[in-house]
């Protein structure tokens, strides 16, 4: 509408506008308080807005005309009246604005946001673990280190990825409401009532976000709460948080931003930025507080993988965070996100390093019965298999070599690693190798608690073999550990097998030696029958003892068990056979040969089959065939 020429007409327009505005003055009339203009009638709303425009126009016109003092004084009077009317209008518009916002400020519909076909709500699987993980916890001091099953939930998280893989703005309120808000905002701002507008907007939208948060299950946990909770409980909270954070940043906050942009479209970006920040700053900080609390929790090995999950999720969200919070006033939010990310990385590093220390110091002294695989070995190897699954992230995070040996270990001898041989390996790979080195060092210490040296060797053999099998079983792990080191390990367990054999069988086979049996004297060159009888007796006793004892020892790996038995047989059987062959006649020609030649070759062959089964033999003695 152009400047009207007819002053009367102008006056009428102004007067009727003023009347309308005064009619809706809620401080003046009950009726005005009862109804909301913008809910009543589109027509009413339009009329009201036109009235406001009319008043605003007259305000800018008033400054034109009138140069005389009297006119000026009157103008001041008029101006004051106009300002008063404007204030009434603005107060009304503020309330209308608030009302429209509140009517459309329910929580975000979150159900449609998750892809129902994805497994985003399924429980994480536990079957990443070994089937034969039946751990015999003889020594309860294992428990701290070996406490929890290690879960790998990557699969369930990646499916929610699909549903919120990028920023997706939704309409938070119907277009009509947005139009109305826009119209009101324009008038308020052009009358200088920007501040009120921002205040109202921020307070109502913040409440809406609060209810969305509640729906998404975002809790208000203090740092103290997070420190006190059991890690298992925290794991599910972390999972939930990751899902919720994706929705918050990519959908909720992005949509709020779009809403601000729409409502304050005509009035410049600073204003919609201000409104957006007013709305979203508090909730964003509240969201991040949880992740921050996790990032500063006490470090312990079982936390590694969830922390990596959290790290990865946040890393993934970072570009979206930067896109949504792109103004100067949101610096603190971006900074906090980056800080949390860096703390999570630090936590991961710290946990790894503490894990290495914990393995070194793992103190259980009670030897595992039967020399079988120690629970520590299982735990560590499972753990580093999982680590190799997280290889992608960890390779980025782990940047320094393992610190070999601690100043405070108290031990004189600490494990060592020759880095020269390991040129070209990533720091992560070095850490994994170091972990195996440290594990072996600890196992060596444990093996010394066996009173029987043979058992100690068997123990080492079993455990190192298990390590080798686990490495071979995981391509990522194998690739990082490298075949060179794998060869070393293989050599180690073979060495242990040899040491075992020597420790047990040298003395047994010693009974079957030739020397010392032949007597050359003046009257006869022959065999000393007494010596021979002694030999047989000793051999039998030793064999029985070894059989009785070593049947209860265990080599869990079938192939290894077979191999060792075969190796024993290959030495024992021919030696016995030849001994029998050469000397049985001498015994049989004497009294009670059955006391000395108790066993046939077949008996021995059968007996060897009992070895390393882990069961005590049912008979006291070895069977003997009649």
């Amino acid at each position: 509408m152009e400047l009207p020429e007819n002053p009367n007409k102008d006056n009428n327009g102004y007067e009727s506008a003023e009347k309308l505005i005064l009619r809706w003055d809620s401080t003046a009339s009950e009726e005005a308080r009862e109804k909301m203009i913008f809910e009543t009638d589109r027509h009413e709303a339009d009329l009201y807005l036109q009235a406001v425009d009319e008043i605003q126009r007259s305000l800018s016109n008033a400054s034109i005309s009138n140069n005389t003092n009297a006119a000026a004084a009157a103008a001041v009077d008029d101006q004051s009246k106009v300002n008063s009317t404007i204030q009434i209008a603005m107060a009304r518009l503020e309330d209308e604005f608030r009302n429209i916002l509140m009517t459309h400020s329910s929580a975000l519909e979150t159900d449609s946001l998750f892809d129902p076909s994805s497994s985003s709500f399924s429980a994480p699987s536990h079957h990443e673990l070994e089937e034969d993980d039946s751990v015999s916890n003889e020594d309860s001091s294992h428990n701290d280190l070996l406490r929890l099953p290690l879960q790998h939930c990557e699969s369930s998280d990646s499916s929610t990825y699909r549903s919120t893989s990028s920023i997706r703005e939704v309409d938070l309120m119907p277009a009509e409401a947005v139009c109305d808000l826009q119209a009101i905002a324009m008038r308020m701002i052009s009358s200088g009532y920007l501040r009120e507008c921002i205040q109202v907007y921020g307070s109502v939208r913040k409440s809406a976000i609060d209810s969305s948060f509640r729906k998404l299950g975002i809790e208000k946990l203090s740092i103290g709460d997070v420190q006190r909770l059991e890690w298992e409980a925290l794991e599910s909270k972390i999972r939930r948080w990751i899902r919720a954070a994706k929705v918050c940043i990519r959908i909720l906050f992005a949509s709020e931003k779009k809403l601000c942009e729409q409502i304050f479209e005509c009035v410049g970006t600073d204003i919609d930025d201000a409104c957006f920040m007013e709305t979203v700053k508090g909730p964003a900080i509240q969201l991040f507080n949880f992740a921050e609390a996790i990032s500063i929790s006490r470090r312990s090995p079982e936390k590694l993988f969830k922390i990596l999950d959290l790290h990865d999720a946040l890393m993934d969200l970072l570009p979206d965070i930067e896109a949504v919070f792109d103004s100067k006033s949101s610096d603190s939010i971006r900074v906090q996100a980056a800080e949390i990310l860096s703390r999570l990385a630090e936590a991961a590093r710290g946990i790894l390093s503490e894990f290495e220390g914990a393995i070194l110091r793992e103190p259980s002294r009670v030897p595992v019965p039967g020399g079988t695989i120690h629970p520590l070995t299982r735990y560590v190897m499972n753990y580093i298999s999982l680590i190799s699954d997280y290889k992608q992230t960890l390779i980025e995070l782990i940047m320094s070599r393992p610190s070999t040996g601690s100043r405070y270990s108290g031990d004189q001898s600490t494990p060592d690693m020759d880095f020269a041989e390991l040129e070209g390996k990533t720091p992560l790979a070095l850490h994994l190798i170091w972990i195996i080195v440290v594990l072996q060092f600890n196992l060596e210490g444990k093996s010394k608690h066996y009173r029987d040296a043979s058992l100690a060797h068997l123990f080492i053999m079993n455990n190192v073999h298990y390590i080798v099998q686990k490495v071979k079983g995981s391509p990522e792990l194998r690739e990082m550990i490298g075949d060179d080191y794998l060869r070393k390990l293989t050599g180690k367990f073979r060495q242990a097998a040899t040491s075992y054999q020597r420790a047990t069988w040298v003395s047994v086979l010693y009974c079957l030696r030739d020397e010392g049996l032949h007597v050359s004297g003046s009257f006869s060159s022959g065999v000393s029958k007494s010596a021979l009888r002694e030999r047989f007796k000793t051999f039998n006793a030793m064999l029985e003892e070894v059989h009785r004892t070593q049947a209860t020892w265990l080599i869990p790996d079938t192939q290894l068990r077979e191999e060792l038995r075969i190796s024993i047989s290959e030495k024992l059987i021919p030696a016995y056979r030849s001994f029998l062959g050469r000397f049985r006649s001498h015994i049989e020609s004497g009294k009670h040969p059955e006391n000395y030649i108790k066993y046939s070759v077949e008996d021995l062959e059968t007996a060897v089959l009992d070895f390393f089964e882990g069961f005590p033999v049912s008979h006291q003695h070895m069977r003997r065939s009649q």
Partner: protein
Amino acid sequence: MNANEYQGSFLGRISIRRNQVVVMDAIHEQELEDIELFQKHVSDRFSELSSPSDDDAILSISWLRKLLDVFLCCEAEFEAILLMDRDPYQLSKPPFDRLIPELLDRAVKALDICNAVTNGVESVRHCQKLAEIAISALDQKPIGDGEVKRAKRALITLMAAINLDDKDGTNAKSTERSWSFGRRSGNKDRVAGQFRSLSWQVAKNWSAAKQIQSTIYNLVAPRGAEASGLPSPIYTMNVIMIFVMWALVAAIPCQERTGLPTHFPVPKQLNWAHSLIGLQEKIADEWKKKEKKGMAGLLDEMQRMEKSAQSLIDFTDSFQFPGDAEKLQEAAGHVAELTEICRIMEQGLTPLQMHIREVFHRIVRSRTEFLDVLEKGSLPVI
């Protein structure tokens, strides 16, 4: 005393005793000196805080920042004494096996308070914004009915915000909001507390007062032999940390401060504690005075804002266009005061939040260091 100085004097001592390299003695003496120096610094710094200049009245924004700086300095010295060249096994033995975990527990509580206070600064900012509306209304010349009504609306909201009950955000004094509408037919939701602009970021049952109370719990000054060893600076640091957190909570609104403890069980004989205790008592007195009226905290700028706002409300109540010249002038004075306060807030609130954040980071780092040392020192079963 920084690491280099420490090394220097330590080696100096060794070289003096040529015949008896009584290393332990030297270390112990050095340690005692360091502790003494530390406590002297504490005393000096708090003494400075007790005699503020005009620009930083106690519990003003700039004074709070000075307090935070004092904390950071003391903390740095403390960490050096406790952790530098320290054999971790020592810190795992009594009494440290109790003292250190207690310290770390208080540290975690302090972190939550930092977060709550940082959040609370937002409500101060909210008041600032409301005051700015009033200022922009009353800055007009000449002031008419419109401006006055506008200012009054904003001022009433401001006073409601200032007198907010910490607990659930309802206005303790009146349920009248500045809206023109109390209720609408059938829509009972829009009651005063429901759509307050600030909801605390903490859990419903979290209480700043209880949090502070629990940090004071079990705070016992070391006695006898312990008083001259490491337990002493540990106690000092505990007290400093508690005091800083307490002062922040007293100044800045945060959830549930009713029942904020006003007494610290710190023995008066402790030399280093005099200024700190003096400050604490002063602030506690103010708190007790104001607590009954219900207020948004002892922050100096908020106190001043409340006074000016109240005066201006009185002015708006009695205003009639064109207004009494004397009253107008008086009002202008209050507006100027309010403007100054808003300026200080505009410039100071964000830096204050960042400063608190810095303290937060420092406490986290320090705690991590201590946890690290504890981990290393955990005695293996041989």
